[in-house]
């Protein structure tokens, strides 16, 4: 019986150890105005964009191309 208990404990310990190898969730979650518990608003929620994410993304994309002089010359 002892060996079974031992095997169980080993298995449990193994499982705990293995769980440490698991990758932490990298996807950012935005919940109730908070990122990982810290409050912040999203850039497209600012007055200039009024929550229109597509408009904000278009602005950023256009702006990004200003860093590429091959677009103009």
């Amino acid at each position, binding site marked *: 019986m002892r060996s079974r208990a031992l095997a169980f404990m080993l298995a449990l310990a193994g499982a705990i150890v293995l769980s440490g190898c698991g990758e932490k969730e990298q996807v950012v979650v935005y919940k109730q105005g908070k990122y990982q518990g810290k409050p912040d608003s999203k850039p497209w929620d600012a007055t*200039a964009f009024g929550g229109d994410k597509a408009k904000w993304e278009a602005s950023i994309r256009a702006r990004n191309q200003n860093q590429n002089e091959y677009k103009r010359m």
Partner: protein
Amino acid sequence: MARMKFICDAERCIECNGCVTACKNEHEVPWGVNRRRVVTINDGVPGERSMSVACMHCSDAPCQAVCPVDCFYKTEEGVVLHDKDLCIGCGYCFYACPFGAPQFPQSGAFGLRGKMDKCTFCAGGPEADNSEDEFRKYGRNRLAEGKLPACAEMCSTKALLGGDADVLSDIYRERVLKRGKGAEIWGWATAYGKPEQKPAEQPAKTGEKS
């Protein structure tokens, strides 16, 4: 979309420090605080290359991982920010950061009670976007204005690129193709050594026996 990143093209960076003063100007960064700096290797000899460095906004940010009060957070656009109201200024993030990004101002608003300060990718902090409080603690929030970081936008040779990583890689790839080489100070060869020379190109060693 969008994973915000910086990339600095060392073939183009001329160590003009435009990025540094653009940052100072944009956020009124106090004397002694360098959210961004230019690093030069082989200064004054052939092989001299410079690179502008700031917070790299890591995906798995070590600063965030080690912070004892958990003041860091990562936004949907991939920007690593922190809450100065939670920060205790312990400097553990400074140990963890491979790039020397965290700064510890002695005084002035950024240094409020010894809080850590760093590059925000011009995205401010937890306070309301473009509010006075946000500007006072973190500097200006350009992302909320639909703009990109001032350092990258003003770079004299467009060496420092900042924005959506997808777009940056397109811009950078075009240059690499045009000139037939990358940045030479970083990349595969630097990390893993130069590829083996072809035997034909090696000078034949005389008198050597196999």
